[in-house]
Each structure stands twice: as structure tokens, then as C-alpha cells.
């Protein structure tokens, strides 16, 4: 693999006494789209939380552009050029759509042209422009997701952590979103993506990572992962089932 922008080393951590990540290792090559797949409950989202400093790690390191960023504040991580768009609904329902987007620029540097970026974001998502002055909670599920993506990308990050963006988006919008990620890559931005929509995601990706029970099982070029016969079996989550029974 080429020069990594992000290097995740031996992460151990979880929720309370529950250990979810048990020595997770992988790295994200610079200027690539890397997709993480794995069964439900594998710990994919947990890895993202760990990278973004939202999970107390018991062990391990997160290295971004050669610098140890483990446990930095979110503001610092944003400043360093990482952004995180989590799974589920994460908007400020009582604020207007526009204000929600603008808040994406909170961590911006002083010389950052926020207004222009907001306009650009509204260009990318015409629905949001149409509803810019509405209370964000009145948006439909998919529109809220678009809002989150627009807000998350406002700062022009170097590394995007994006957790299942396709949930709730119409096929057309999924396509658009994936196209957007591709464009980002073409501009040199690195993307770390989690998707259950594995096939489409891997198709646009350079690398694929399969995560199970908190550990990376396969790390390879995306097309090879797609073709890997083990994938089908892994998605069954077989091991878990046996132990629990």
C-alpha cells in the first residue's frame, strides 16, 4: 500500500467493561477510498468513534499524517483535517437548515471563506437550498442525511470518515453521494467509508477492509475483496452464532 494518511494501530477499547475492539489494525492510503464492511455489531462504527476521539481507548494508537492524534479533542482533529459523519440522525432539529450547515464551519481557520462554502454546499444539495430556512427537524429522513453530509464536508477535510451514508438515501442520491466521494478522491482527499451496501461501495473504492468482532479480517484492494469467496461466509457472522448457542 502506498503512503498511509491514517494508521490505526492495535486499538483496544469498548463501552464500559465491554471490550469491542480487540487489537484493530489497518491503515488508509492517502488519496484513496477505503471501505469497511462487516456484519452488524462487528465494531465498525466503534472504530470510527475511536479514531475521532469519542471512545476511551485502553490501548492502541491513531496516527494521522505521521502524527499521533490519539485522544485529541474533536476540534483539534477537525483542525488537523479529519471530519466524521456518523451513522443515524445527527442534526440540530430546532435550528434552521442553513444554520445547521453553517455550524459545520465552526472549527474553520480564520481565513476560511465560510459563506462561499455554504453556498457551494447548497449547490450540491438543491433540496437543502430549497428548504434552507426551515427547521431541520421537519426534513425527511433522507434530506436530513444530505444535510449531515453537506455539513460534514464543509471544512474541506483531508480525511473523511463517513459511516453508512447510503442509509435513507434514494438510489439516485446514493449514486450522487458516491460520485461526490469519487470527486473528493480525485482532489486528493482520502475517504474511509463504512457501508452495508457493500457491492456499490467497493465498486468505487480502492481498498476494502472486512471487520469482524472488532478485528480486521481482510485488507486488500477493493476488487479483490469483492471477488473474495470468503466474504459471503463472513457476512453470516457464523462464529458469533456458534458461541452464543
Amino acid at each position, binding site marked *: 500500500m502506498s503512503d498511509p494518511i491514517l494508521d490505526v494501530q492495535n486499538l483496544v477499547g*469498548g*463501552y*464500559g*467493561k*465491554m*471490550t*469491542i475492539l*480487540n487489537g484493530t489494525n489497518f491503515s488508509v492510503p492517502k488519496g484513496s477510498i477505503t471501505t469497511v464492511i462487516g456484519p452488524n455489531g462487528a465494531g465498525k462504527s466503534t472504530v470510527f468513534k475511536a479514531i475521532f476521539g469519542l471512545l476511551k481507548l485502553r490501548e492502541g494508537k491513531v496516527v494521522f499524517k505521521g502524527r499521533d492524534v490519539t485522544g485529541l479533542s474533536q476540534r483539534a482533529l477537525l483542525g488537523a483535517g479529519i471530519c466524521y459523519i456518523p451513522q443515524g440522525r445527527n442534526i440540530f432539529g430546532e435550528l434552521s437548515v442553513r444554520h445547521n450547515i453553517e455550524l459545520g464551519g465552526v472549527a474553520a481557520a480564520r481565513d476560511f471563506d465560510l459563506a462561499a462554502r455554504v453556498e457551494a454546499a447548497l449547490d450540491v444539495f438543491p433540496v437543502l437550498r430549497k428548504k434552507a430556512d426551515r427547521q431541520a427537524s421537519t426534513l425527511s429522513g433522507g434530506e436530513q442525511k444530505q444535510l449531515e453530509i453537506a455539513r460534514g464536508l464543509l471544512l474541506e477535510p483531508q480525511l473523511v470518515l463517513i459511516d453508512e451514508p447510503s442509509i435513507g438515501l434514494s438510489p439516485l442520491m446514493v449514486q450522487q453521494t458516491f460520485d461526490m466521494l469519487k470527486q473528493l478522491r480525485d482532489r486528493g482527499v482520502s475517504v474511509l467509508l463504512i457501508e452495508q451496501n457493500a457491492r456499490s461501495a467497493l465498486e468505487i473504492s480502492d481498498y476494502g477492509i472486512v471487520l*469482524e*468482532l*472488532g*478485528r480486521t*479480517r481482510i485488507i486488500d484492494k477493493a476488487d479483490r475483496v469483492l471477488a473474495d469467496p470468503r466474504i459471503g461466509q463472513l457476512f453470516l457472522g457464523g*462464529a*458469533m452464532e*456458534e*458461541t*452464543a448457542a
Partner: protein
Amino acid sequence: MTKHSRLLLAALAVIVIAGLIIIPMNFNRYGLYILSQWAVMTIAAMGLNLTLGYAGQVSLAQGAFVGIGAYGAAILTTHGWPLISALGFVIVICFAVGWLLGYPALRVQHHYLAFVTLAFSTLAFLVFRNESWLTNGIYGISNIPRPEIFGFPTRKPLPFYYLCLGSLGLVTLAMWWLIRSPWGRAFMALRENPIRAQSLGIDTRRYTLMAFAIGSVLGGIAGVLYAPLTQYVDPVPFNLQLSLDLLMMVIVGGSGFMFGPFLGAMIAVLLPEWLRFAEGYYLMLYAAAVIVLLIYSPSGILGILDRYLSSRRTQAASALRAAAQSKLEAAQ
């Protein structure tokens, strides 16, 4: 829960109950009075714990129901009714009023609900104070008799304490049954996610009203014991402060835990007494103690225990996950 820990719990329960029966036998009047007060307040707090802790309906009116119960008992027993029939009367009244008070909860929640019930508390106080023809107003009702239970007089402090303790026991049993029944689960559903609950066929209206009505009845029962305990009822103790105190008992003890109110009432009723040695500073100490307790465990005293138990459970689940992992590793 393992069999072992269940046995341990049963043993603990027996010891506590025996303690509550035996130790006070050589208490002085004051000690018995305070303990009786604890039992009475525990009953009222248990009612609020149902409404608030389990069903998630914020109420600042529980004190008013204690008042309704106390006035009901005071008025009726001074007119020659036996306490038990006064109790019956109060239960019916509190159920009905509690049910009605629940209606606003169908429209508004959280702090808005808190304020509607706050308003009710204030109104109840004004009625107690202003409707002299019924309540004797600010002068209050004195010479409230203590009852005879199965021919045993409870005029003396010790028998009356046993009456309070016995009532607490009965109420606890009933509450335990209620909470572990499907009703209990429905109440919690109301608290956790009313919208989802509705779509699962849970008649949130009826359960909300029930939560208010039953909780209020417990407030009323506490009041029925309060009147013969102090043998004098006036409006002052039933102002908003009592409702706030009861709320505090629930939260400090651990809201949504069966035995939270027992501990909460202990903090609210017994702790200030223990702190009296500090004289002018005792209420300051008390306030500080409550604050420190909440800082240490915002989910209340039983929250500490709960954290411990759930971390043990999580540990077990974590071990299971680790086992699965090594199996997976081995399979490769």
C-alpha cells in the same frame, strides 16, 4: 441474577425487615416518630417513583395528594369515621383526581408537565387554606385520633410505628407486583419511547392516566397515615415544598428503582436529623450532602449499585465476545 446473589439478596431483605421491627422497640418517642415519618414519606415517594421513575411523567403534585389524604383522614376521623373507611374514601378521591391530573400529560410532557402539576400543587394548597368550612383553614384540624387496628390501639408511638411499617410493607408488595407485571413494562415504555409504545398497541393514554392515578393513590395513603401521626393537620406542610422534597427523594434514592424511595426518604427525613449536631449549619451540611451525592452518582444511590451490576453483566458479555473471537481466529 445468579442463584447465589438472589439468596444473598433474600437474606439481606430478611435482615433489614427484622431490623426495622426489632431495633426500634427501645427507641424513644422521637426516634419512633421520625421512623414513622420515614415510612410514611417512603410510601408517598414510591407513588411518585411510579409516576416519574417508571412512567416518566414528571409530577410536582405528589405533596398535594399527601395533603388530600391527610385532610381526608383528618376530617373524616374527627367526625367519627374509622381510619380504614377514611382510607377507602381517600383512595377513591385520589385515584379520581390523579386520573384527571393525568390529562394534561396527554398533551404536554417534561417541564411543561412539571409546571402544570406545580400549578395544581399551588391550587391545592390554596384550597386547603382558604376553604375554612371544610378544612378549618389556616387554623388546621387538631386532635386527630389514632386508630385501633384489629382491636389494638395505636395511640402509643411504637404500635403506631408498626402500623406505618406494616402499611409500607403492604404497599411495597403491591408495588413490586405491579412493576414486574406487564403494566410495569408498559409504564417503562411510556418513559422510554411513547411514540413507539403507541404503535405497539400500548394505550399510552390509559397507562399515563393510570400512572398518575396509582401514584396519587400512594400519595393519598401516605397522607392518611400522616394525619394520625402528627395528630394535627394544617395547610403549611402540604405546600409546593413537600412535592419538591418528594421529587428529591425519588431522584436521590434512584428514580426507576424499586427501593430508591426507601433510601431517598432516608436521606430526606433521617439525614437532617443526624446532622442536627451541627446546629445552625445542619441544613447547609444537608444541602451539601445531597449535592455531593448527586455529583457522585447523578442516577441516585441505587444508580451506584446498578452501575456495578451492569458492569458485571457487561463483563460476562465481553468474555463471550472474546471467546467468539478466538474461535474465529482458530477457524482461519
